[in-house]
């Protein structure tokens, strides 16, 4: 990585807030501007926890190390401040908000980004929203539906990417956006992400996934393997292909050996 990384995580340890459950055990990771990184790893290895710690989930507590976003320590920032600074998390399990429409939700999120005397142009907003929905092949009627309320699994995932497309972050962390999507939907969502990247080549993407399939559509520059709260291997796209063949057995064995010592 030539220039200074947009996200630099070093020695990050984290636990469940107020409990003695350590989940991240020293994560090191650097993402350069405009790069695509993928994190893979067995269930329960801490991938979502890492994503949530980056976004500022109050249920987790960083106990050591650093997370620098564009050189700034984000661990001290509130989740809304991180979002406004340009961090976006597409949730593995998006939350339902009864009674709050997608349009109202996104309008509020954009308004929160304005200075005190600025006002959001509602026509521009409407245009942007409709254009992004079209890009993601979503029916315009979704704009008035309550956020995720009664959505199918795939619709929820698509809605995450819609929000990302409207908010246009500098860093998009996508936590298993591919799970729950059918083959066509996966292609639509991946195309959406690629279109956004064309519009904003500086956007950096961190994909968390279990499957090579997504990586065929959104091609990563780097693939990392997370096991038991640590990045145990980093490399090029070939790492994902190896995992597809061999699974995580190797790593788990090593872990057990380490534990046995």
């Amino acid at each position, binding site marked *: 990585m030539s220039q200074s990384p947009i996200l630099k995580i070093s020695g990050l340890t984290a636990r469940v807030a107020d409990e003695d459950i350590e989940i991240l055990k020293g994560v090191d990771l650097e993402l350069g501007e405009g790069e695509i990184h993928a994190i893979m790893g067995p269930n329960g290895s801490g991938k979502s926890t890492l994503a949530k710690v980056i976004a500022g989930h109050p249920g987790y507590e960083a106990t050591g190390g650093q997370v620098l976003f564009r050189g700034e320590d984000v661990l001290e920032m509130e*989740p809304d401040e991180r979002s*406004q600074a340009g961090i*976006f998390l597409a*949730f593995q399990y998006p939350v339902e*908000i*009864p*009674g*709050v429409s997608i349009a109202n*939700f996104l309008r509020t*999120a954009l308004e929160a980004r304005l200075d005190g005397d600025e006002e959001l142009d509602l026509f521009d907003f409407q245009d942007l929203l409709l254009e992004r929905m079209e890009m993601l092949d979503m029916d315009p009627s979704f704009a008035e539906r309550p956020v995720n309320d009664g959505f199918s699994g795939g619709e929820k995932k698509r809605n995450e990417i819609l929000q990302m497309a409207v908010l246009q972050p500098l860093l998009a962390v996508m936590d298993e956006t591919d799970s729950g999507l059918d083959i066509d939907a996966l292609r639509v969502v991946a195309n959406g992400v690629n279109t956004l990247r064309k519009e904003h080549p500086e956007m950096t993407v961190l994909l968390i996934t279990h499957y090579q399939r997504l990586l065929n559509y959104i091609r990563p520059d780097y693939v990392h393997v997370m096991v038991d709260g640590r990045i145990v291997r980093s490399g090029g796209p070939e790492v994902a292909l190896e995992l597809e063949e061999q699974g995580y057995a190797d790593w788990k064995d090593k872990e057990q050996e380490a534990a046995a010592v």
Partner: protein
Amino acid sequence: MTEASVIETSAPAEGVTETLNREAVERAAAQEPTWLAERRAHAWDVYERTPLPSTKLEEWRYTDVRRLLDLDALTPAPRPEAGTGEALLEGLDGLPAGLRAVMAEDREAAGHVAIVDGCVRHVDLSDELARQGIVLTSLARAVQLHPELLEEHLATHAVPPEEGKFQALNAALWADGVFLYVPAGASLDLPVRVSRWLSGGGLAVFSRTLIVAEAGARVSFVDEIVSDDLDAQSLESSVVEVIARDGAQVQYVSLQRLGHRAFYQAAQRTLAGRDATLDTLNVSLGASVARVDLNARLLGPGANSDMLGLYFGDGDQHFDHNTSQDHEAPNAHSDLLYKGALDGHAHAVFRGIIRVHEGAQGTDAYQTNRNLILSEHARADSLPNLEIEADDVRCSHGATVGQLDQETLFYLMSRGIPQQPAERLVVMGFLGEVLSRLPLGGVVDKVTRAIEVKLRHG
């Protein structure tokens, strides 16, 4: 005082004061027809022999009237001046500015009534509706113009004085109110809007509303009450009687936005005939104490009542909603949804009962109360209940008291929305479900705005 003298003196009846007494009732009845004077006197008898509700009564367990209401400090608001029966109308210009502001927010209406301290000060109804036989007038005037209708319906089969202490007091001392009559088959496309104003502290205001919709008639009625914060307690007592004959469709909406120190007491009863639809919405946002008793009686087969409620309390507000759904005929349907959010030290009580009477087969009755607690000092008590004496019925009831969900808050904040606006959004979404079920022109906007103002100041 010696023991002997205690025995000799019969204790004065509870709630009889320097100004709330039999003389006041007699003054009210002085120029009225005999049937009404007798009705007031009877109501006062009932009042005197009914004790003030104590918290030992299940229905008043959480609302201690003896502690919360000081009747001795109240004076009845002045009655309508004699003669207003004829020359009732006043231009809107003479009304208090606060009341005019409330009316200015409103959209179109079929007619308006403006009320200050319980006395009607303005009425208008379009000529075209008047030609159809629709009557919208003050109760004081209706006593003269429509005695037969009032004699039949006023404080008789809907809310008789025997219903309780406050119902009796209101029936004895009511000063004025609204009378709406919609003849068979007549239909109002726009709502009738009533705007009430309470002008100050130390007052006891007794007002009634009587709505009669004949067979197949259609009308909606928005009843709003507002005041500034008061310098001393006032009692605003409101009795609402709504009668929907066979196949009539009636919506009654009450928006309560009284100021601090107001004690609001409302007794509402709806009577739905065969295949009639009689829906209600109660919005409680204001007053220090608000006690609303709503009894929906489904009297005819196929009758239908949606009962919606919404409350949002903060500071030290206390709301007590007491509802009942009486299914007295087969194949009727009622669906109640009351939702409230509570901040600060606010306390809300919801007590609801579905009673399916003998012979009411094929009843569909539902009842849901949901509370969202926003602060560690706020509290909600929810007591749903069922009493079923018929077979082949579908009934359900449910109650929840929950906190603001942390996962939801994080989701909103992760999109850049700061904590307070995020909380506002969740609360509006939570309460909005109620409003979306009754999309009456102007009401949704008005209530939404009022809640937003409260959320911002909280």
